[in-house]
């Protein structure tokens, strides 16, 4: 147990250093103008470290006051991360006006559904309500990033390498937090120390990825494609769908007719 706590302290110190490094890198490369919400998120995590350090020193690690402050600050951190994810979604898809209109509605609806699901399957216990909420928000963030990449894949949209690395870091950290919180919910006391250690480890890995992502200056606005007149979509989309449907129908006929002929 003692070794875990020492390792945790070392990792915690390392994570603070890396956060400060990422913060400095964003400023130095002027990427804070490109990703203002990501920059805010990093700033909030830095403030979180400072607040937690002070809180634990004053009230101790296991006091209810420390716990309340820690979870309160965590709520701010998750809100800042959600905004950073929204910023990334916007940067990737907003250039494609029509797709973005569809995507943001779908993102919001799915995030809402995920939150409802996470709430429905969580334990009806007020003590663990915060943990369940945290897990629900992490799950919603992970699903939002996944939907973004499903849109990217389907519409064959080119994603900047920086955005890919930033999203990957955010996704894996959220997914890991969901797992970590789920285990903690079941073995609350025996897992708490390891939960902290693994959580910090995952965060350090994400920080390294983000630092790598923003090591170079990014263009403030990605180039925008020249849009077609709206009438083109209205005319062609139903026509193409009709043809695809007919093609499907033909395949279906081959299948069924040949099946009968056998």
């Amino acid at each position: 147990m003692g070794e875990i706590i020492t390792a945790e302290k070392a990792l915690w110190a390392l994570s603070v250093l890396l956060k400060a490094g990422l913060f400095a890198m964003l400023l130095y490369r002027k990427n804070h103008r490109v990703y203002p919400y990501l920059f805010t998120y990093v700033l909030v995590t830095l403030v979180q470290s400072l607040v937690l350090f002070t809180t634990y020193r004053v009230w101790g690690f296991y006091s209810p006051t420390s716990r309340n402050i820690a979870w309160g600050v965590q709520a701010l951190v998750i809100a800042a991360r959600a905004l950073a994810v929204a910023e990334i979604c916007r940067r990737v898809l907003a250039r494609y006006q029509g797709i973005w209109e569809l995507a943001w509605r779908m993102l919001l609806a799915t995030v809402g559904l995920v939150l409802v699901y996470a709430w429905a399957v969580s334990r009806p216990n007020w003590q663990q309500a915060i943990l369940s909420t945290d897990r629900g928000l992490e799950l919603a963030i992970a699903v939002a990033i996944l939907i973004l990449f499903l849109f990217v894949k389907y519409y064959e949209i080119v994603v900047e390498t920086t955005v890919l690395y930033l999203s990957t870091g955010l996704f894996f950290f959220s997914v890991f937090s969901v797992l970590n919180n789920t285990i903690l919910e079941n073995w609350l006391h025996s897992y708490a120390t390891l939960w902290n250690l693994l959580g910090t480890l995952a965060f350090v890995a994400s920080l390294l990825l983000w630092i790598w992502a923003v090591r170079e200056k990014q263009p403030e606005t990605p180039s925008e494609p020249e849009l077609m007149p709206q009438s083109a979509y209205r005319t062609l989309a139903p026509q193409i769908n009709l043809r695809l449907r007919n093609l499907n129908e033909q395949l279906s006929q081959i299948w069924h007719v040949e099946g009968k002929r056998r």
Partner: protein
Amino acid sequence: MRFSFYAFFALVGVLLLLFVWAARKRTRREKRLPEARVLEECGRGHVAHLPQIRQALAETDYVYLSQKAPAFVARRVRQERRRVASAYLSAVREDFGSLLRVAKIIARLSPEVAALHEFERIRLTAVFAWRYQMIRLQLLAGLMPIPQLDGLSDLVSGLSVRMEAAMKELGERAADLASSLDGRGSDIA
């Protein structure tokens, strides 16, 4: 252990798999033509080779051959015909894919898209992929007689011709819009 414990693990597993699949870079095989060339080449599908394919798969030829030639020759020819049918199905899939790609490009470059059309296209793609694989597997396994491709091919060739006309119309509209905006000194969208 509660059900939700396993449910979250399963959910995370699915999310991870989907993310890796969606975020991975395109392989060389998946890299495709640039947009301009896709629009330009739409309509030049594999159906151009339809007469030869029809000839190769004609039932009368096979009946004649099976009456005149030894059994092993007829069997060999039957295998070859299956291979041709399978290759042709792949080509039809390529044509389906190119139509689909045009649809995606149009959606990407449109100021507004209809969710109904977009979801319908996803559903059609999934259904096509399923049917295509089923037919192909049965053909390869020799479980299905050589299909009569006439109807299907007529449809695809009809599609290509009409799509080509639609694309031409689209190009003209885009040119009209560009010239009308030139006078006002504005950028398109």
